[in-house]
C-alpha cells in the first residue's frame, strides 16, 4: 500500500516536470522572437545559442518595420477582408443554419442534405480556382471573401445550437403572427449569442491567418493581406526591401523577428481571454458533429 503511494508520488513529480518541459518548449520560441526583436542587430549577429535577455535593448528593428509601407497595407487589407467577411459570413451562416433547422419547411431537408454533401466532396484545388476565376473576381479582395463566406462546419455548429432551443418559443411567436425573419432575428439569434461568439472567433482566426487563396488569386501587391506581406519578408527573404535599401544584413535579421512580433501580437493579446471559447467550439463540434 505504502509502496504504491510512493510510486504515485514519483509519478506526480515526473508528470509535473514533463508539463513544465512542454510549457517551456512551447513558449520559448515566442520569447526568443521577442528578445531577438529588441536586440541590437550587430550583437545579435555575432551571438550563438540561446537568448535569455535582449542583447543590448533597442527599438531599431521596430522603427524599420514602422517605416515599411507594405506592413501597413497588409494590415489595412486584412482588416477590410476581416470585417466584410465577418458581416457577410455571420449573416449567411445564421440564415443557413436556421433554414437547416426548420422541420416543417419542405425545402430545408433537401438543403440540409445538399450542405452535408459539400463536407465530404469538393471540386479540389484546380476546379475551385477556375470556378473563382470564372466569376472574374480573381485579383480582387472579393476572391478572399465570397468563396469562403460560409464555413460549413461553423454553420452546422450554429444549427446544433438552434436545434437545442425548444420549438415552442418560435411556434408561439409564429402563432402571434411573426414571420421567419422576425423569429430568427428577434428570438433565435439572442439565444445563440455564445455560439455566435465562438464562430466569430473561428472566422476571425481563419481570415487573419489565411494566405494561400490570396497568393493564388491576387497579383496586385497593393491588395496583399498581412500574411502575404509576411511571406515576402519571412519566407522569400526579400528583407533588403524592408530594411530600406538595407545592405545591412544584420539589421535584416532582427527586423524579421520584429515583423513576426507585429503580426502575432494581436493574437497573443486576445488569446488568453478567448481561449475558453475556442475550446468550447471544439467540444460542441465533437459532441454533435
Amino acid at each position, binding site marked *: 500500500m505504502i509502496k*504504491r503511494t510512493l*510510486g504515485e508520488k514519483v*509519478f*506526480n513529480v515526473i*508528470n*509535473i516536470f514533463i*508539463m513544465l518541459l*512542454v*510549457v517551456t518548449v*512551447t*513558449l520559448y*520560441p*515566442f520569447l526568443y*522572437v521577442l528578445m531577438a526583436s529588441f536586440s541590437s542587430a550587430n550583437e545579435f549577429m555575432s551571438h*550563438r*545559442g*540561446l537568448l535569455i535577455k535582449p542583447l543590448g535593448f533597442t527599438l531599431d528593428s521596430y522603427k524599420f518595420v514602422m517605416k515599411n509601407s507594405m506592413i501597413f497595407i497588409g494590415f489595412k487589407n486584412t482588416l477590410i477582408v476581416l470585417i466584410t467577411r465577418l458581416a457577410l459570413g455571420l449573416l449567411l451562416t445564421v*440564415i*443557413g443554419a*436556421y*433554414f437547416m433547422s*426548420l422541420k*416543417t*419547411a*419542405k*425545402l430545408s431537408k433537401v*438543403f440540409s442534405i*445538399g*450542405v452535408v454533401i*459539400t463536407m465530404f466532396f469538393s*471540386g*479540389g*484545388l*484546380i*476546379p*475551385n*480556382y*477556375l*470556378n473563382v476565376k470564372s466569376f472574374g473576381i480573381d485579383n480582387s479582395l472579393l476572391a478572399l471573401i*465570397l*468563396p469562403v*463566406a*460560409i464555413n460549413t462546419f461553423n454553420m452546422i455548429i450554429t444549427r446544433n445550437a438552434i436545434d437545442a432551443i425548444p420549438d415552442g418559443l418560435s411556434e408561439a411567436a409564429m402563432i402571434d403572427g411573426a*414571420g*421567419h*425573419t422576425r423569429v430568427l432575428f428577434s428570438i433565435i439569434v439572442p439565444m445563440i449569442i455564445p455560439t455566435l461568439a465562438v464562430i466569430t472567433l473561428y472566422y476571425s482566426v481563419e481570415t487573419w*491567418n489565411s*494566405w*494561400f487563396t490570396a497568393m493564388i488569386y491576387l497579383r496586385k501587391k497593393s491588395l496583399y493581406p498581412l*500574411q502575404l506581406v*509576411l*511571406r515576402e519578408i519571412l*519566407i522569400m527573404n526579400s528583407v533588403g526591401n524592408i530594411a530600406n535599401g538595407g545592405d545591412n544584413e544584420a539589421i535584416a535579421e532582427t527586423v524579421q523577428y520584429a515583423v*513576426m512580433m507585429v*503580426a*502575432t501580437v494581436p493574437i497573443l493579446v486576445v*488569446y488568453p481571454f478567448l481561449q475558453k471559447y475556442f*475550446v468550447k467550439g471544439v*467540444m460542441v463540434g*465533437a459532441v454533435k458533429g
Partner: protein
Amino acid sequence: MQKSKVSSQNFIKSWKTDLRRNGEIYLVALPVILFFILFHYKSMYGVIIAFKNFSPTKGIMGSEWVGFKYFIQFFKDDYFLRLMKNTLTISLATLLFSFPVPIIFALLLNELKSKAFSRGVQLVAYLPHFISLIVICGLISKFTSADGIVTNILAFFGMDKVSYLNYPQYFVPIYVISDIWQEAGWNSIIYLAALTGVDPQLYEAASIDGAGKFKQTIHVTLPGITPTIVVMLILRIGSLLNVGYEKIILLYNPITYETADVISTYVYRYGILDGSWSYSTAIGLFNSVINFILLIAANKISRKYSESSLW
C-alpha cells in the same frame, strides 16, 4: 384516374401551403442556397475537366472529351512513384508520431492534481495552433538555418552545422516535429473531452479491486476513450493521401523536392503555376478517390472489429 387527380391536387395544395408558410424563409435563404450552388456545386461540376482537354477559351462544355488520358499520363509520369512515396512517407510519419502524442498528453493532463496548473498548461499548449503558418514556417527556417538556434543546439550534440531545410533527408523530421509542436496541444482537447465522460464510479470500483493508478489507466481510462481514438484514426486514414500543401509550399525548395514534393504540391505547381488544368485536376481527382476508398475501408474494418465507426 380519379385517384391520381386527387393526389396531384393534394400535392399542389401541400406545396401551396408550404410556400405560404415558408416562402419568406426561402427568399431570405436564397443567397445561402446560391452560395452553395455557385461556390461548391459549380466547382464540383468543374471536375469533369479531368476527362476533357480543357482550354479556358473553349470553356468546360466546349472542350473535347479525352477519357482517361490524363490519368494514364499521371501513372506513367516520371515522378509518379516519387510523389506516392513522399506523400505516404509524410502521412504515415505523421500518423505514427503526431497521432499518439495528443492522447498521451491528454492522459498526463488528466492525472495532474492541481486543476489550476492543468488549465495553465493547456492555455500555453493550445497557443501555437493559432499562430499563422507563415510565422511558424518563418520560425522553422530561421531556427534551422546554419546559425539558427536549433542548429546550434544540435551542433552541441555533435550534429552538422548546416541549414537543415536544404537537405532532403531532414525534411520529414522537420515537418513532423514542427507539426507536433504546433498541433499536439490543440488536438488533445477532443481526448480531454472524452476523458471527462469516463464514469468516476469505474475508478472507485477498480481501486477497491486493488488496481493502482497505472492499472486504472490501462483498464478504465483507455477503454473509456477508445471510441474517440478509433473515430479520429478512421478520419486520419481517410485522409492518408491528403498531405496539406500549405506548409510544404512554405518549407520546400527544388533541392528538397526529392523528399518533400507530394501529390498536392505537384497539383499546385502543374495547375496554378503551369496552367495544365486538366492534368492537375485528374491528379487531384485520383487523390480524392483513393482517399474516399480508404475512408470507407477503414470504417468497415472498424465496424467489424470494434463498436465505433463514423456511420
